């Protein structure tokens, strides 16, 4: 009886017939793959449920734990309206009005179109809800003052969807959209200044202070320090398989990005990303490896 009533209400409330809804969710799954949500919001190492909250993201500003974004009404985003979701993704503001840390890359997601954002939400709501409470971030005192994020955003954040450049080809625009909005490549590949804002002069030029202390390579077309010697086909092949032209393979964070996301994209889209990356200004920026202590050194200091 109750279930029947619920079904009836659902039928009245749903704006579109189920077929169209699943169509939207399907499109949303593609946006989800391109955006790599699962990489931070799923604690794979601990065998956590899909999107139920993430493993630690270590940054120079503290350790962040991505929240539960399953449709669980209490612990996830199940109670969010479309407007709540769009505002979070586009403006970096929670439904309660508090500012999100830019560890959540709304700085890139703001560039997603309304249609893609709505589709993404539709997909997220097809994932099984998980009743897992969020884990609080571990931050130094100065980063715990959330209202300061208001100033951070004023300094560094430009909200608003991607605007295609009519001077450029459709493939270039598609690549730019995928690379800068969905796949948010710049969040890891662009070095940051001491306040965590992008160093705009060195867009995509790599950094040795990536998440988890990772060394993130320069992906501008500089021939010496970037990927200038890679062809568009090489880049697209790498994004699909994780293999570099010299036979090495992506490891660690990037392997996840490829396995769970980029390898699921259409070949044309990967080619578009490659096309866009090749069009970037080449920046000479050598990202050095972080060296572990040599054994000799260790002896000297420890004993």
């Amino acid at each position, binding site marked *: 009886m109750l279930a029947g009533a619920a079904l009836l209400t659902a039928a009245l409330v749903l704006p579109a017939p189920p077929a169209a809804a699943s169509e939207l969710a399907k499109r949303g799954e593609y946006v989800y793959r391109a955006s790599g949500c699962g990489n931070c919001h799923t604690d794979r190492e601990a065998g956590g449920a899909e999107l139920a909250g993430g493993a630690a993201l270590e940054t120079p500003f503290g350790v962040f734990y991505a929240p539960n974004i399953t449709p669980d009404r209490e612990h996830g985003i199940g109670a969010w309206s479309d407007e709540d979701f769009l505002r979070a993704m586009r403006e970096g503001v929670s439904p309660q009005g508090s500012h999100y840390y830019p560890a959540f890359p709304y700085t890139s997601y703001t560039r997603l179109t309304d249609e893609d954002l709505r589709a993404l939400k539709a997909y997220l709501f097809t994932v099984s809800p998980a009743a897992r409470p969020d884990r609080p971030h571990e931050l130094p005192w100065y980063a715990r003052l959330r209202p300061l994020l208001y100033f951070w955003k004023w300094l560094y954040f430009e909200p608003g969807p991607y605007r295609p450049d009519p001077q450029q080809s459709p493939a270039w625009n598609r690549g730019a959209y995928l690379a800068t909005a969905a796949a948010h490549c710049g969040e890891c590949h662009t070095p940051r200044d001491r306040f965590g804002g992008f160093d705009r002069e060195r867009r995509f030029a790599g950094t040795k202070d990536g998440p988890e202390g990772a060394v993130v390579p320069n992906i501008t077309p500089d021939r010496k320090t970037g990927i200038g010697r890679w062809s568009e086909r090489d880049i697209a092949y790498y994004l699909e398989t994780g293999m570099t032209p010299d036979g090495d393979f992506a490891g660690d964070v990037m*392997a996840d990005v490829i396995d769970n996301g980029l390898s699921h994209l259409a070949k044309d889209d990967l080619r578009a990303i490659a096309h866009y990356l090749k069009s970037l200004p080449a920046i000479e920026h050598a990202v050095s*490896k972080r060296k572990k*202590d*040599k054994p000799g050194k260790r002896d000297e200091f420890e004993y």
Partner: protein
Amino acid sequence: MRSSKNKKAWSCFAVAALLSLPVVAGAESEPEDIIKYRQNVMKANGANMGAIAAILQGKVPEYKDRLGDHARGVQAGTKNIPALFPDGSDFGDTEALESVWKDRAGFKKRSDDTSKKADALAKAVAGGDAKAIQARFRELSDSCKACHKDFRKEQQ
């Protein structure tokens, strides 16, 4: 006179050689040398993989006869990867993650998988079926990537 001096010199050399032999045989390598060695083995694997990819993608049609050489190279180079990571070779200039030594069983499983996939590729190349070669290469690639994901740091 001259010959006895020579004899003396020779016997000295022989004694020294005899003495040093067991020492050399029983000695363990420096961790740095092991790390350098395994990096070279892995580099060789990467180089062969890159060469195979270039051939399969049709970039270098003039070298397609060498596919078998490269496939056998990877086969040899992936035979027993965990042996390249003995205890004590975990610090220094290495990109190996701690998980290599902490999760020995997991590491061995991954590496055995890679070795098996390399065998399969070499066999497919010998068989000559282009489709099978592509498929086996893809599986080997995935196996390499899966291992790097869990056991190697992000690197430039």
